[in-house]
């Protein structure tokens, strides 16, 4: 670039509006798709906010996702760097290790396989709605609906006893909280790994009809790798959809015409899910990649060793890609958003997440046509302090 480079910025975390990315990100994107960013370890790397720049970096094999190469974008995240490299934790592996692990898993998460789970997910959803109805309003939608549904589903899929959910949910909350100390993060990860390792040992002796038993049966992974991969799928499998279900419902409650449209016309569900994914972009920080050699991205040279933080939220609001990007429109064609990432690490469980939402939102809205917030907006605690954005609690009545 011949133009003077702007001063490095730091990554903003607080969202001025509950459903919009931090405002600075959009302003910076207008100035250019990539700009220098100061990392928590004083590294001066980059921040990408433009849709095509974000996709270009995520699709480029010259960028690494290995923990040891990444500079921490915010200070709290620096603590996570202290965690030892986890075998099997494939989100932090580059090819060819990543390819080997992912190939063993993708067959389990195809569109067809996930659709076969629909009746079961419908039943789980109906059971949660029955329970809410029995217990009566007000209810915390996170606790009663948004969190249990994906937790129950991923537990069944992996073969993890749901009865242990308090333990693994407590650990995953600690892992995702930006306020956890390094010690707390270490302990939570160790506890979760201990728990899953125990499960792997039991399944090796007595295999079940589940994904972890299936991975053991391939004979191509060590128990340590299976545990690492399973911890990743367990955390990713419930925290993300849970936050989309709760935050998405809150968004719809604030857009009553679109809520009514989705409730009354089931054929809108697929498009509504894509649009809520795009509009809300709950991945709150990163992902981050580091260049392994000098790479040119849209006229910017990212030198070997420099990190780039990809703002998925800013990319999903890029007017060059989406018309009126700051408007929620559940009838738009939002496919192509980067909420599940892009490139070889794009979310493994995305087809499962889509089905859980496509079943979950309409079922909730039809069961409780009078659904409403049971607390003033200013008392809804937003998850600005978590790696995955959403609401901590959502009190609702009907």
């Amino acid at each position, binding site marked *: 670039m011949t133009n003077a480079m702007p001063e490095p910025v730091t990554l903003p975390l607080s969202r001025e509006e509950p459903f919009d990315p931090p405002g600075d990100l959009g302003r910076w994107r207008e100035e250019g798709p990539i700009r220098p960013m100061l990392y928590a370890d004083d590294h001066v790397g980059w921040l990408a906010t433009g849709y095509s720049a974000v996709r270009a970096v995520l699709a480029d094999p010259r960028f690494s996702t290995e923990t040891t190469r990444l500079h921490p974008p915010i200070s709290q995240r620096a603590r996570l760097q202290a965690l030892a490299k986890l075998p099997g934790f494939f989100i932090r592996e580059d090819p060819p290790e990543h390819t080997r692990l992912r190939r063993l898993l993708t*067959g389990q998460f195809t569109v067809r396989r996930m659709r076969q789970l629909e009746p079961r997910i419908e039943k789980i959803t109906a059971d949660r709605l029955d329970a809410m109805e029995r217990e009566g309003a007000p209810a915390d939608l996170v606790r009663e609906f948004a969190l249990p549904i994906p937790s129950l589903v991923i537990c069944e899929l992996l073969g993890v006893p749901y009865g242990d959910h308090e333990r693994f949910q407590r650990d995953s909350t600690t892992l995702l909280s930006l306020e956890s100390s390094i010690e707390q993060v270490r302990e939570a990860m160790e506890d979760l790994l201990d728990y899953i390792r125990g499960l792997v040992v039991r399944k090796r002796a007595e295999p079940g009809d589940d994904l972890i038993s299936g991975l053991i049966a391939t004979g191509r992974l060590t128990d340590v790798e299976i545990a690492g991969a399973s911890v990743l799928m367990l955390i990713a499998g419930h925290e993300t959809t849970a936050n989309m279900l709760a935050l998405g419902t809150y968004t719809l409650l604030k857009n009553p015409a679109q809520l009514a449209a989705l409730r009354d016309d089931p054929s809108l569900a697929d498009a509504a899910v894509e649009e809520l994914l795009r509009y809300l972009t709950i991945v709150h920080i990163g992902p981050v990649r580091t260049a392994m050699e000098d790479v040119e991205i849209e006229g910017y040279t990212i030198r070997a060793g420099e990190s780039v933080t990809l703002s998925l939220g800013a990319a999903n609001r890029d007017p060059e890609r989406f018309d009126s990007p700051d408007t929620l429109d559940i009838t738009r064609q939002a496919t192509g958003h980067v909420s599940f990432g892009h490139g070889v690490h794009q979310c493994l469980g995305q087809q499962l997440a889509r089905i859980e939402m496509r079943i979950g939102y309409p079922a909730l809205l039809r069961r409780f046509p009078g659904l409403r917030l049971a607390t003033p907006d200013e008392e809804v605690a937003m998850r600005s302090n978590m790696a995955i954005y959403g609401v901590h609690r959502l009190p609702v009545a009907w």
Partner: protein
Amino acid sequence: MRIKADTDVCIGAGMCVLTAADVFDQSEEDGTVVVLLPEPPADKEGAVRRAVQVCPSGALSIS
């Protein structure tokens, strides 16, 4: 239009199946792309172009 799919590059995300279900499928074993209609009819070409565009791994191309 002729579709080319590289199953070595494919990561089995399923975006093509989601976008053009009559044209693409995924293998039962490893989830990689199976092209059902390598020369899709004209009325599917728009969906196929979208599928190529949203593919996360760049496994699809058209000529």
